[in-house]
């Protein structure tokens, strides 16, 4: 593990064995997050963003399971053998183990997409914030309550003191997401996983929540794994971006680099699909051709080739592209940038297969 990284995911594979077949939701993901860094993960629905995030906390819904890879996490609160820091492989931990539970909420906290359903409807919002504090900190109930009120104020819930004893149905969607952020921050985690935290909110509230998250990230200095399908949101909040397609990271770079010099054809298509004021006036919105293939039938070769405008018949549909570092900060997984890319294998069978898929 790199001496600086807070989290390193290596060749993570997660699959869901279903009756219809096995879905390879995460197919060899590599990611690294530095302390205090905001890493955005972007991709269409079904590309494995959420499952990757769930793997960190080992809360993948059944029947999903981790088939391989490592998730190394630099734990600072679990000084096991006298050391201040301790590197834990989250992928090998038992999800029900004491160790995993001490990491959840305490060192890695998570915010979910649906603020409406991430609180229990029959418990007060305050009690659910206090729960995280009481689980991980040695505080009395009264002290935990004060801490919870403090965090509710911090995330901008008006009248925090009185709203502690309100139930989730008395909160608006935006307020609930604020409260969820309060839960996540309450134990001062070193990594915050935010799974599309603004998707279910309307645009003005979205902007407020993003503002809040950016402010708190700077204040607390924690690292954030920010998952979204919205490149506009990423541009506002992230330092680095990883683009995901069908369970793999296809391109990774700092956010400005990606926006200005996208390399992977998929990234280019994604950027073209972002509506812009003025530029597209009177024009139709651009969409990426085709749709994500059935997860049960991953395409051979590069998973994006059936939809790719730069597809090379005989190469992209047979050769699995390698991870190429273009420079220190920019890496991509596409045959166009591979120094030793194979020459087209133009056997008739391959060409025919490619043209029917395209």
């Amino acid at each position, binding site marked *: 593990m790199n001496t600086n990284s807070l989290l390193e995911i290596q060749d993570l594979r997660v699959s869901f064995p279903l009756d219809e077949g096995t879905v390879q939701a995460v197919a060899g993901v590599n990611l690294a997050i530095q302390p205090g860094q905001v890493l955005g993960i972007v991709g269409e629905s079904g590309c494995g963003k959420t499952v990757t995030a769930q793997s960190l*906390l080992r*809360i993948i*819904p059944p029947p999903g399971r981790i088939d391989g890879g490592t998730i190394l996490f630099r734990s600072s609160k679990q000084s096991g053998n006298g050391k201040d820091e301790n590197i834990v492989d989250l992928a090998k931990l038992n999800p*029900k183990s004491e160790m995993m*539970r*001490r*990491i*959840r*909420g*305490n060192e890695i*906290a*998570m915010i*979910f997409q*649906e603020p409406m*359903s*991430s*609180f*229990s*409807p*029959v*418990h*007060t919002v305050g009690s*659910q914030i206090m*729960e*995280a504090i009481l*689980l*991980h900190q040695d505080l009395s109930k009264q002290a935990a309550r004060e801490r919870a009120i403090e965090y509710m104020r911090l995330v901008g819930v008006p009248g925090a003191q009185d709203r502690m004893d309100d*139930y989730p*149905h*008395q909160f608006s969607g935006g307020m609930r997401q604020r409260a*969820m952020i309060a*839960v996540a921050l309450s134990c001062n985690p070193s990594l915050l996983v935010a799974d599309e935290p603004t998707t279910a909110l309307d645009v003005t509230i979205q902007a407020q929540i993003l503002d809040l998250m950016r402010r708190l990230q700077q204040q607390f200095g924690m690292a954030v794994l920010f998952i979204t399908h919205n490149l506009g949101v990423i541009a506002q909040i992230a330092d680095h971006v990883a683009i995901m397609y069908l369970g793999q990271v296809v391109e990774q770079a700092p956010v400005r680099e990606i926006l200005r010099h996208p390399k992977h054809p998929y990234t280019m298509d994604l950027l073209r699909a972002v509506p812009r004021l003025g530029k597209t006036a009177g024009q139709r919105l651009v969409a990426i051709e085709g749709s994500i293939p059935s997860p049960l039938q991953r395409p051979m070769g590069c998973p994006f080739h059936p939809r790719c405008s730069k597809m090379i018949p005989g190469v992209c549909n047979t050769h699995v592209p390698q991870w190429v570092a273009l420079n220190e900060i920019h890496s991509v997984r596409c045959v166009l940038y591979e120094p030793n890319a194979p020459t087209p294998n133009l056997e008739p069978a391959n060409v025919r297969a490619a043209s029917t898929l395209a």
Partner: protein
Amino acid sequence: MARFLLQRFVIMLVMLAGLSIIVFITIELPPGDFADRQAYRMKSTGVRVTEADILQMRHQMGLDRPWYERYLSWIGNIVLRGNFGISLSQHIPVTEVIGERIGFTALLAFATLIFTYGVAIPIGIFSAMRQYSFGDYFFTFLGYIGMAVPSFLLALLLLYVSVFVFNSNVGGLFSPQYVEAPWSWDKFVDLLNHLWVPALVLGLAGTAFEIRTMRATMLDEKNKLYVTAARARGMPEGRLLLKYPVRVALNPIVSTIGWNLTAIIAGAPLVAFVLALPDTGPLFLNALLDQDVYLSGAMLLLYSTLTIVGTFMSDILLALLDPRVRYGERT
């Protein structure tokens, strides 16, 4: 909360008033009355009874007054003086006839409820957490049998088995030496030892139903986002289960207490008859056969009151359990 309680309480009173009218009408419905019944009985013992004698009897018993007059004096006596009238067949006050027995009926209903929920909730949770395991299938099978077998048949079966296989008797509520004995701790223990049989018989169908309900809601709730969110906070699995999905899954269970009580009270007289329990069951059947208006009316009214009060209590429990019910009138 206070407003919710008051509202429910007023509704309960209105229901009780309406119910008393229905009870009275139901009792009056069958053709003929107690006077006819009495005349028939006398004739069969060889006594000559004339039309005039019947009219005379009817007048003495006040059966010739219009129905609403009789209803008003009946309900008025009950509400104002706790006087349920005189049993026509036994010539003593109804309260004396029912006396201790209604207590046993209430106790039996209560014991059955405890049995039902005490068994159904843990099994339902187990079945949901170990879905499609051997245990789950086993309880599912048992549950379907429980729902399908009529309670009186089960009572007969238990009687048969206990007498012919174990050479003891599960009938009654007390061992012979305690039947006439004054109340004591030993007598109470003896009562509990006997009570589980009718409670099992009466509660089996409801238990089976509640197991299915608990299992289904638990399956729905256990994968909801708020459960995952609590898990992601570092909550240990056992506490997580009890605090979140079980708490929400209790909601439909509690709201069916009212129905369950109805089913129990409706089924109780037959089972009590078969098992020879000293509660109101056998008395009720005889009172209906005799067209003893005051006795059967009083009992029907008490049964229905038990049901309505039970429903009222389940409403209160539900409001305690679920803030959305409690604050329902505001949002």
